[in-house]
């Protein structure tokens, strides 16, 4: 799991071109969107495409569940583990 966590952090940084951020700067539990890391809705779409490409996991854009899966690095990794 910790390997996946680092991989996902690296994917977030590269996909979203977060040039000043290191994997260690992203908290596993903290919110990715709005409050924590400060990502926005376009980032969510971009990340959805990148995760689909990397892990062949499709995330339904409209469902309430997606919001939970996208909350933090941890929740995203759990979702990937369960679905790939």
């Amino acid at each position: 799991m910790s390997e996946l966590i680092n991989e996902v952090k690296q994917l977030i940084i590269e996909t979203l071109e977060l040039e000043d951020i290191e994997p260690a700067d992203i908290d596993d539990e903290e919110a990715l969107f709005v409050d924590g890391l400060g990502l926005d809705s376009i980032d969510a779409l971009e990340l959805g495409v990148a995760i689909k490409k990397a892990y062949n996991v499709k995330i339904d854009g409209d469902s309430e569940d997606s919001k939970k899966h996208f909350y933090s690095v941890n929740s995203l990794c759990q979702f990937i583990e369960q679905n790939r």
Partner: protein
Amino acid sequence: MKFGIEKCVAWCGNLRTSNDWQLWAQGELTHTPDDDLPPLKQIPAMQRRRLSRFAKLSFHCMLESLGENNQDLACVFASRHGDLHKTAKLIEDVASKDDLSPTHFGLSVHNAVIGLYSIFAKNKSAMTAISAGEDSFMMAMVDAYGKLQSQNLDRILVVYTDEVVPEKYHKYVSDKEKTISVAFVLTKHDIENNIMLTFEPQDNSEQCSAEFQPLEFLRFFFSHTNNAQIHSKRYKWHVSR
């Protein structure tokens, strides 16, 4: 039409400051292409990461031209090709049935740069994005002048940006085209600072431009000449002061 031009800022390869442009206009400095980009440290990193090369050059010229004031000016953005490197990549992804980047797709419209500027500067004034073939640069002034008159404005920001097109498209455009961004504030005519611009349909169908149109204008603007004729396939432009 008569108007003034203030704070003209242009970036084209090694030519970046008014001094560079004056030396170039006098033939003392030659243009060399160069991949440097303005650092734009005043833009928060979370906004800056979405700016392409095309957008960064536009932002630099717009923000330098506006300076501290004038944050609520109306704007005219012009480009012949738009952010074609981005668009071409999207088209290639469609052709190869790859997923498109939502960010790049969202920012591939012709008014994307001026929209990003509006968000950054919190400027809610009227903004238009135009394209007029090889006359895109000169037509930006015509459009801006029209808005100045019809909306009774004192000043309006004009920004023009184009890049050398991706290799696949080279055969369709003149090899005189260069990567350039130019921004200035177009103002009402006054004695100190005035430019007169007229244009008429081209009568010589063989006529083609001597140089890339924005550079022809900048050569006139930064030199001491009082008159210049700028030809394109469609129009004869005449500028004087």
